[in-house]
């Protein structure tokens, strides 16, 4: 699927959930957003994400690190007088960025952990030692369950996206190496 079609799909999805044109640009989502208040609305501005999407220009947001600053606190969605699901839209765009291979490392490594161990935090020996001291049972491990998760990753887009992310990282590293070698030569 081409990027334009992806974006169109997101616009249609959003339009189905709510009347997106109902955003009357009041800026309540910006005032409600803890990230906007912390780093300034010039640096993070949820309403502009809605606007860009409505105007079919969300593509330019996909490579911005700020796309990932959202805390998922859903304060924007909760305060919006028109019930525009801003935080859900941001997540849709993050999904789209991931399908292009753009995702912060910490998110990727945790998701890989989930697929191999079944959990974001894999049961550890150290944790079980502490638990024993407290009189708690060790954390159970069930390998069949992580097989199920890998199946889900294959059937959905997840595995493909993780692979695209890996490829993009490799390519970036190669480019970086080439620049360094050129510098040395």
């Amino acid at each position, binding site marked *: 699927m081409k990027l334009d079609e992806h974006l169109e799909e997101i616009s249609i999805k959003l339009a189905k959930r709510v009347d997106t044109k109902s955003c009357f640009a009041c800026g309540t989502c910006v005032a409600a957003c803890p*990230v906007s208040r912390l*780093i300034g609305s010039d640096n993070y501005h949820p309403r502009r994400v809605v606007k860009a999407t409505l105007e079919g220009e969300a593509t330019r947001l996909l490579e911005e690190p700020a796309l990932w*600053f959202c805390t998922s606190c859903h304060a924007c969605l909760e305060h919006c007088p028109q019930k525009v699901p801003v935080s859900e839209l941001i997540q849709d765009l993050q999904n789209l960025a991931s399908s292009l291979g753009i*995702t912060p490392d910490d998110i990727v490594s*945790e*998701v890989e952990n*989930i697929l191999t161990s079944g959990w974001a935090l894999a049961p550890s020996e150290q944790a079980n030692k502490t638990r024993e001291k407290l009189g708690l049972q060790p954390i159970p491990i069930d390998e069949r369950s992580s097989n199920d998760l890998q*199946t889900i990753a294959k059937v959905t887009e997840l595995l493909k996206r993780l692979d695209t992310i890996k490829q993009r990282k490799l390519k970036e590293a190669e480019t970086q190496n080439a620049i360094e070698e050129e510098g040395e030569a």
Partner: protein
Amino acid sequence: MITNSTWALYWGCVIPNRLPYMELAIRETFRHFDIQGEEIKGFTCCPNPLTLPRIDHQAAMAISARNLAIAEKKGMDILTPCNGCFEALKGTAKCLQKDKQLHTEINAILAKTGHEYKGPVKVKHFIQLLFEDIGLGVIADSVTHPLTDLTAAVHVGCHLLRPSNLLNVDDAQRPTILHQLVRALGAKTVQFLDEMDCCGYGTRPADREMALKMTGIKLENMKRAGAEALVVICPACTLQFDLMQRLALRDAEDKTPIPVFYYPELLNLALGTNPDQLGFNLHRVRVDSILNKLVPHVTP
């Protein structure tokens, strides 16, 4: 609701691994109020709403639905003490209930793993169980050691409440459940500036420093409001406020630490449980000053 006699316990990963003292306090609470729970084989990550759905929302829903299906097959409703797990599991259940087409799509994915999610299973947060099933009256009547000397700030955590159209637990902008639960133990609560803002954990995967700044501002605000301790119910908030507190207050004018209590810990103290049984030594920020005041008969 399937049943309220025995709950399928969904602990998540942060509490058992990083904050086992929370589990201890919950299990003590179970004993005290005769709540029955069962460990369920086959549960996996909820998955964490801050990571997996950001890469693939559909896969995240399928993984949540798989957990729901497992409890459903056992004929049990789910009880979880973790806000993140609660949002993932209850949010998914509600989304699938609202959207039949989505429900069919997710079940088609689940079929490849041999599971089916039908729908009757309910998801409850542990704090809801205290407030709705046990109730403020019973809790207040059970208090033998009132915490009258304590003035605390409370932090509910975003994912107990929001999105409210899916979770529907308490007023999403002005929640009172936790304030009421703390007051039922005899303690006072204070409100503080931007109390409902994120603890900072949510932005951690993208920018750790930004997360710490958010945490630091909140800690300063609650101290300014006169809180001598903070009461939390969410493991992610606990990691930020307790484990990361020293770093979060690095640049603060007032670096005085503020002890962080998990609500069931305070509940147990008020019910007369010996603090030695609760693993307070595992807190990063020392709680001795408050313990000495609240339970002078026992020194930890």
